[in-house]
């Protein structure tokens, strides 16, 4: 199961990628999509929504189960990936690439450092 070194992670099995300035990209990990099975529906927030770390901002559903998505950091939703709403299977086929979910403009860029690194996340998944 791949866990890219350059990303940060949460215990809720999301990844966070540093982008330009205060903008970060968020998705779910390969481990998470494997646990879910085939994703058939994604519910994403409106652009402009303000979230606090830990807030539920959406849902991913497979035929078997549903998982809430939690904001990894405080910030504002500045982009959502409409491609995954149309083709939820992108989350299974390319969870770290085309299967990204939202972009946040975080209130504090240094807050990224509070998240798990790849090694720590691998300990969470026991892999």
């Amino acid at each position: 199961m791949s866990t890219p070194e350059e990303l940060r992670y949460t215990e809720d099995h999301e990844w966070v990628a540093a982008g330009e300035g205060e903008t970060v990209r968020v998705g779910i990990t390969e481990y998470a999509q494997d646990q879910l099975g085939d994703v058939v529906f994604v519910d994403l927030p409106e652009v402009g929504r303000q979230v606090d770390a830990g807030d539920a901002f959406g849902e991913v559903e497979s035929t078997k189960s549903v998982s809430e998505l939690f904001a990894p950091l405080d910030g504002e939703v500045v982009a959502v990936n409409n491609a995954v709403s149309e083709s939820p299977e992108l989350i299974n086929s390319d969870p770290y690439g085309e299967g990204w979910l939202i972009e946040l403009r975080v209130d504090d860029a240094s807050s990224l450092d509070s998240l798990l690194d790849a090694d720590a996340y691998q300990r969470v998944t026991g892999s």
Partner: protein
Amino acid sequence: MKTALHEVHTGLGASFTDFAGWSMPVRYSSELAEHRAVREAAGLFDLSHMGEIEVSGPQAADALDYAFVGKLSAVKPGRARYTMLCDETGGVLDDLVIYRLAEDRYLVVANAGNVAVVAAELDARARDFDARVDDRSADTALIAVQGPASAAIVGKLADADLSELKYYASIPAVVGGHDVLLARTGYTGEDGFELYVPNEHAAAVWRVLTEAGEPHGLLPAGLACRDTLRLEAGMPLYGNELSTELTPFHAGLGRVVKFDKPGDFVGRAALDTRREPDRVLVGLTGSGRRAPRHGYRLLADGEDVGEITSGALSPTLGHPIALAYVRPEFAEPGTALSADVRGRPEPVKVVSLPFYQRS
């Protein structure tokens, strides 16, 4: 516990889930691809977690007529029947298929989670009859081939003429050089076969079926797609739609209770007084993508009128489908209700079952 095919599944890269204490394949690659394979070609399932209990002897038929709500004495040798085991209050202990193998021999196939209960009840209920009860579950593997291509696949390997094997019938057969009980039964809404195989030959039978199925598009298929397949076919799952709190009448399956059979049977008196249930099982369809799921509430004009027992986005139909118990006055097809899907109401409509029927 692990089935005789566990290493085969590991080799195929399966993901596993716990089911009634068994480590079972939940999917091999994609449950949607597996689901589609069963609808359009064929799927290969390991169902060895299910229980096989043999009841034999001169009074085997009488013992089963007493133990179950159905009239098993009326089943001809070589045929099978869907029936239920009820307790004294009429509550359902298990729903199951019973094969009559010979005049004096039956095979009772129990759900994995209920094998111990079914075996213990059969022991107790057969006590006053000249019949013996042998639990063969630990030695028996069960492999299912389901889908429109299944007859072509099994037909290539079996020494039997499948055109003579009707739905809900079984015959002893040789498949790929191994003795099996070959049954034309299943839980997917498709044509299909179930092969009861001694554990030691399970891997070999799985292998020949895989090879024969490959040109037909057969895929190994896990429990995830088995659940969406049976849901589309409107078939109840014990633990979701059936329980000891419910009678066959609740589930709309009162026809399996044979009050006209001679002699008493366990649950008879109670069932006779419980023919008019206070809630009934219905099918629901939704229009969006958010599926109502097990345990969610159903509302009519804000009033709680029932509960979802199973639900998913139907892979074949592309919209949400669900089974639910509702008060009888809300059970009419066409009735508009609302499902509370994690705090957001989703409109649903009562429909007649099944959701999917093979053409």
